[in-house]
């Protein structure tokens, strides 16, 4: 086989594999952020995520049932006493958003917040 045919063959093989490589990149697994909820706060209390980058908030309860709700983003997750719950989403707008505990958990429930910064 002439060298130029070998080169064409290699290019064709490369072209055939390239899209699947791009696919792998496009389907990159979402970033996971672990958050512990306990009376009466979230740890961490601030997170930063990127617009357009899929993310999963993994909320763990260290005591009673809690929740995490971002009203402006229409996101809400509830977690059972001592349990774990996941909130997958892709931020589609930038800004600072304050999430609140969405399950009444006691006297300091109203001050239980988590601030999420969504940046470009």
């Amino acid at each position, binding site marked *: 086989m002439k060298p130029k045919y070998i080169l064409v063959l290699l290019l064709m093989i490369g072209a055939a594999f390239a899209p699947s490589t791009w696919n792998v990149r496009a389907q990159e697994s979402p970033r996971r952020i672990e958050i512990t909820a306990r009376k009466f706060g979230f740890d961490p209390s601030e997170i930063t995520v990127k617009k357009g980058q899929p993310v999963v908030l993994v909320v763990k309860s260290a005591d009673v049932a809690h929740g995490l709700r971002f*009203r402006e983003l229409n996101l809400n997750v509830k977690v059972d006493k001592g349990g774990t719950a996941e909130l997958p989403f892709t931020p589609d707008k930038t800004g600072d958003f304050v999430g*609140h*505990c969405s399950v*009444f958990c006691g*006297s*300091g*429930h*109203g*001050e*239980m*917040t988590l601030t999420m910064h969504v940046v470009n």
Partner: protein
Amino acid sequence: MLALAGVIGCKSTPPGKFESGTMSFAKHHFLIGNKKQKNPLPDNHDTWNDGKEAFSHYCVACHGMDGQNIGVPFVDHISPPIPSLASKDVQSYTDGQLKWILDNGIWPSGMPGSKGTLSDEELWSIVVFLRHLPPAGSQGTPDIYTH
């Protein structure tokens, strides 16, 4: 004798018409602030549902599930009396005043403030719930009184 005088002095009786009227006027015009603040939440069914849920956690013990004291066992034995939240006296407060009352309570009645216990969003959603209370008795008795 002194002890007896103390007990009589502390006796709580329902307020008369003049006392109620004076207090109501003072509350509406001087004591309850925040008259002009607007509710930042939309007045829709979702907000009403949020308000109903928040109300059910903290307010039903005294105000009942319907905000009209239905199913509250001690409602006839407390002074000053617990008002129906559907009453003209309550409904004539502005949204901002209702939020102020939810935040700070009303001294010296038994109404406690909820600032910190409930979030601002929850408190504003309760204001929406208060503006559209369900019919009296339609929500049954609060769970805490049925066990």
